[in-house]
């Protein structure tokens, strides 16, 4: 448990730092990947919805504390993304990179669409088609590429967690 917490904390902080600084230089047509939401989705898929929800909540809360106009918005959204990604894919063979890429794509689109809709609900200006084709879709594709890199990392981290757990049991 301790091991798990330390590893997740470390990964989240590292990604948060990269996301807010160096990732600026990886923008393609103005769009950069969202590392933290990709981490949430991949964790939920590879591990389970509980860990996905915890990672989503904590990384969302970090974004809220750093940039959010209100505290809790991204935390809530991250938690639900983790739960959804973990539970809807429960029956599918998880340790397959293509499954992870596919669901990263689907949940990235869902997540960013919700962010866009909630932020624009007040202004009558509805440019959803533009937002979808120019921001949401490219970001989802970008996130898929990131998920390919994250997948083996989380699989081996997961094995390490489980090894520690079974070692303690027996």
């Amino acid at each position, binding site marked *: 448990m301790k091991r798990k917490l330390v590893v997740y904390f470390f990964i989240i902080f590292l990604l948060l730092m990269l996301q807010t*600084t160096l990732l600026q230089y990886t923008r393609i047509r*103005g769009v950069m990947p969202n590392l933290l939401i990709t981490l949430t989705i991949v964790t939920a898929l590879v591990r389970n919805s509980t860990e996905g929800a915890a990672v989503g909540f904590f990384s969302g809360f970090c974004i809220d*504390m*750093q940039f959010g106009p209100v505290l*809790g918005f991204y935390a809530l959204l991250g*938690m639900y993304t983790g739960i959804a990604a973990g539970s809807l894919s429960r029956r599918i063979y998880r340790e397959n990179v293509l499954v992870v890429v596919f669901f990263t794509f689907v949940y990235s689109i869902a997540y960013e669409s919700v962010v866009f809709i909630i932020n624009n609900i007040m202004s009558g200006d509805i440019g959803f088609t533009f937002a979808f084709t120019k921001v949401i879709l490219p970001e989802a594709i970008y996130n898929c590429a990131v998920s390919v890199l994250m997948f083996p990392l989380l699989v081996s981290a997961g094995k390490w967690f489980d090894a520690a757990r079974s070692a303690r049991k027996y």
Partner: protein
Amino acid sequence: MPRPVKSKWFIVALVTIVLLVVIGVTANKSSKLNWLSNILSVPLKPVQGFLSSVGREIEDFFGYFQDIDVLREENEALKSEVEELRRKNREFAELKEKNDELRRALNLKAEFADYTIAGANIIAVEPGNWFSVFKVDVGERDGIHVDFPVVTGSRGLIGRVLDTDISTSNIQTIIDEESAVSGWIAKPGGGHAIVKGDLQLKEEGLCKLVYIPIEIDIEVGDIIETSGVGGIYPKGIEIGTVIEVRKTNSEFDRYAIIQPTADFKRLEEVFILKSEKYDETGSAEQ
């Protein structure tokens, strides 16, 4: 196992309720809960500052090779421009003298006389692709408050302070979708209009001028300044130049595309205009 499943959903429901309350409470800017954000932004400030500067170093290094050709051409163009400007400068010097004389006669205050200027470095940028908000390395401790105007070294408008922590603050740029600034079309018979950020234009570092009065003949090249209406920005800060006028459905429904004076792709150091008036009222409140 029905029991753990039940308790799992109970935790989710509980967290949801707590977060909704926190969202509600922190929506009010003066709420004490907003202090929580210091827990993260204070320790992360040096790390982000370091990483941002590393990123710039790397970019500068690679930019060096790409820039050579561009610089040569630019040098030629600039040389001829210098001649032209020298000539104009002499004319302006005369005009300035006259202007100063008239100002004194009218007893007008100098530009930004009520403000002191604080320099700040950009240390982080908002993680998502939606907004154009960045974090700088000065905060409440340096006397920065919400709504202070932010400008570039050449006094082009960048935006305003969105919120502050002890040692950092977030700046909302004028190209951010949520930003709206009251602008003044600076030409004879000019008028008020609104400079708004736009999701489609943000990527190119541009913004939009809307609600242009019907009687104004807006043209490419017109300069837009802050109007001073609304109380956030002092009058006369240059916002940008009109680069295109677009008509929508009718002649009366039109907007212009603005090239901001500040180059949002290459921002490093910014200047925050600290209002002295604010400090007086601020301390009076406490």
